[in-house]
Structures are given as structure tokens and as C-alpha cells.
């Protein structure tokens, strides 16, 4: 069972609301990632982090922001949600930079903006 947790599992909110998607891992992994995935489609990297106080934008432009104040926690925030943000958001983590290893994924947050 993956030791990476995402909350909420499902979220339906109105346009213009501010939301934070939570992601926590208990494995002590340095690297963490956020991917966006529309149903039946590929994953797109939107943010990643090498460690505490490190955040980078991914390959897909996103209006969201992230923070990494603690190793285990990597929340994603949308300041003003829009219907175009409706998607599934997947958080993942991996071990040290120089060791090729698989990612551990959370179960995802399915966001619907109405």
C-alpha cells in the first residue's frame, strides 16, 4: 500500500473559490511531484520539488502554486478555480536524485469546478 496520501478524494466547488489540494508522504522522499490528468488521457507534470523550500514549474503551464515547507508535505493551491481546472490531480514522490527509482503515487483528487 502506497504511503502517500491525497485529500480530498473528490471535490466539487464553485468558480472563483480558492482551494488547496493536500499531499503527504511518510517515506521521507526528497522529490515530490504534481501531475494533472484528464480522464483517459496522459499525465502532465505541473509542479515538482527537490526538497524543502524547492519548487519548480513543470512541463504544462498551470495557474496553480505549490509550497514545500516540510519534507512530507506538498500542497497545491488554486487561488481562483475555473471550470478549465476540472481534472484529476495526482501527487507522487520518489527517492534521492541520483538513484533511478519508481514513483509512488497517491490515489488522486478528482476536482470539478462548476
Amino acid at each position, binding site marked *: 500500500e502506497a504511503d502517500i496520501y491525497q485529500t480530498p478524494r473528490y471535490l466539487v466547488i464553485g468558480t472563483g473559490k480558492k482551494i488547496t489540494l493536500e499531499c503527504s508522504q511518510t517515506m521521507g522522499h526528497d522529490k515530490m511531484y504534481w*501531475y494533472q490528468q484528464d480522464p483517459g488521457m496522459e499525465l502532465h507534470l505541473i509542479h515538482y520539488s527537490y526538497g524543502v523550500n524547492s519548487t519548480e514549474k513543470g512541463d504544462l503551464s498551470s495557474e496553480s502554486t505549490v509550497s514545500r515547507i516540510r519534507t512530507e508535505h506538498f500542497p497545491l493551491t488554486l487561488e481562483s478555480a475555473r471550470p478549465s481546472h476540472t481534472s484529476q490531480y495526482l501527487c507522487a514522490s520518489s527517492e534521492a536524485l541520483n538513484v533511478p*527509482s519508481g514513483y509512488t503515487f497517491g*490515489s488522486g483528487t478528482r476536482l470539478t469546478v462548476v
Partner: protein
Amino acid sequence: SQQGEEDPQALSIQEGENATMNCSHKTSINNLQWYRQNSGRGLVHLILIRSNEREKHSGRLRVTLDTSKKSSSLLITASRAADTASYFCATFNQAGTALIFGKGTTLSVSS
């Protein structure tokens, strides 16, 4: 786009048959990985094949890698209904900072 391409997009087979999925990338492959995703869930790491390896086995999974063709294949032998899922290949982006995923193959195994 650096995204990979899986082939076929969808595959339907009977239990006991083998399933073969292929993926190709436009950029050079760096430590290719295969993942499985059950409907609406997160991805689960299946197997990693390093750039200097040509073939790797794990249980009923067999992965091959051809770095010159920038392609890989995943073979699932003696498939089961529980293998029904989407399968994605992934390799690192050119900057080496994170994995980029293909579009996935949706496998349906009927009993």
C-alpha cells in the same frame, strides 16, 4: 511535446492470453518505467528497465528496451481479469528532472 506514445491505445483479450503493449518516445530514453492505473486511481509502479538493459522480467511481466529505436514493450503473460487497467510507460524528460508519461494503453481482459 516530449510525451510518449503507446500502441495500441486499447486492447481487449481473453483470460489466459498474452498482452503486448508498445511505447515510443521522441527523445532519448533514460531508465524507462512502466506503470499501471486502475480506473480513477493513482498509478502503481510495475518495473524499471535501465538504459543499459535490453530485457527484464518480473513475475508475469516481461519488458524489452531498444534505445536506438527509443521504444519499449511490455508483455503480460497468461492475463487475468484483474489485469484490466491502463498501462503507461515513462522516461525522464530531457532535463532529467521528472518522468514524462505516454498516453497509455487501456487493457481489458474478459473471463
